[in-house]
């Protein structure tokens, strides 16, 4: 799914928070978004995910505006993820359950992703009682488990310990390679962005200021 943005404008109290003339995210690539605190990165990502209204401009997904069916294929992982008041396992299988996938497959997929992100021991813990990094990992597992076409990540490794960062980066790049998953991730870690991304969008005060390869 290609994403084209034209003349996008989003204001808060008359302050333009996102103001992008044109940019595009091509299917099957990994994009990094960097920029100062308050540059508008989170706002942009939420708009792309269809979670935030905007004041002007146009976003086309494979040539058409966002519609219900497409939203099912896009997922967004927040900077402060919300986990449901159930077990870690129930959180992770939720997107599969609502897709009516058969129980056997659900169990297998959940097991695989938990093993991959090394959170199997947390399986039965209440998701609202996790540590900062644990929450981030569980939310990521929940986002990856249903193989979305477009993955929007907001600082996914901000609170992750160094050993696990590699695991997570690997999990993401693997899916990009194997399933052509499109990834747009915000990160303040320039090394990480350079390691992972095909293209980098840098934002400053709402505007896109440069693209580095």
């Amino acid at each position, binding site marked *: 799914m290609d994403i084209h943005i034209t003349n996008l404008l989003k204001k808060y109290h008359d302050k333009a928070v996102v103001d992008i003339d044109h940019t595009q995210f091509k299917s099957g690539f990994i994009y990094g978004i960097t920029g100062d605190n308050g540059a508008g990165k989170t706002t942009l990502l939420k708009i792309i995910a269809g979670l935030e209204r905007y004041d002007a401009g146009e976003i086309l997904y494979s040539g058409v505006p966002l519609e219900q069916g497409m*939203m099912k294929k896009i997922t967004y992982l927040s900077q402060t993820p919300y986990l*449901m008041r159930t077990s870690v396992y129930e959180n992770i299988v939720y*997107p599969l359950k609502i897709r009516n996938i058969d129980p056997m497959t659900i169990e297998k997929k959940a097991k695989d992703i938990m093993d991959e992100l090394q959170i199997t021991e947390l399986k039965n813990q209440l998701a609202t009682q996790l540590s900062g990094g644990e929450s981030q990992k569980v939310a990521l597992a929940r986002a990856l488990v249903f193989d979305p076409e477009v993955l929007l990540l907001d600082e996914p490794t901000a609170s992750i310990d160094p050993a696990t960062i590699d695991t997570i980066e690997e999990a993401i790049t693997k899916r990009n390679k194997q399933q052509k998953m499109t990834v747009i991730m915000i990160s303040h870690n320039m090394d990480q962005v350079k390691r992972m991304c095909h293209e980098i969008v840098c934002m400053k005060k709402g505007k896109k200021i440069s693209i580095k390869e």
Partner: protein
Amino acid sequence: MDLLKEGLKEALLLLIRFDKEVYSIIGLSIGLSFTSTIFSAIIGIPLGLYLGVKPFKLKKTFTRTIYTMMSLPPVVIGLLVAIFLSRSGPLGTLGLLFTPTAMVIAQMILITPIILGITYNDAKQYGPSISQIGITLGASKFQTLKLLITEMRITLLIALVTGFGRAISEVGAVMIVGGNIKGHTRVMTTYIAMNNSMGNYAMAISMGIVLLLISFIVNSVLYRYVAGE
């Protein structure tokens, strides 16, 4: 003090004696309040969730109206319902005044805003992040509603219990629209009020104790059910 002791003794006797009238009064109270709670929940909960989550204009006005509605005076509700249902009123042909149906209608008008208000208030606060999760994980509108309900179950439970508690303990409205007819529309609160106005304090108190017990039991059972919290 003696009256209280006597009331307690009387309350026990009331229940042990298996007095048919008393049991049918208790049964009617519970039945009516339960019915109106269910109907009010069917209206109030989805509406409250929807309005809480959805951004819309006039939200402030709406909030204010809801809170005003939450304190609608029961006598006024009773009066209005009675006027509408009376023979000369617009719905007079239905012949509903002084029937249990009229009482359910009055109770619904009383508690729907309460259930709606409690739901709306929390949905406004937590709803957006919950429904956002639904959306990002690919839930349909209906699945998102289900998610909201499961995540906010404690709030919704409080709304239900509050609504039921209000319905079963209310007297002003049901007295007017029900008429306190023996064996027909007499409920616990009108029984209490009547016995009080007849000077039968012990009987009034004993039924009052039964009413408190029911309230406590309903709370306990539902809290146990949700466990946690």
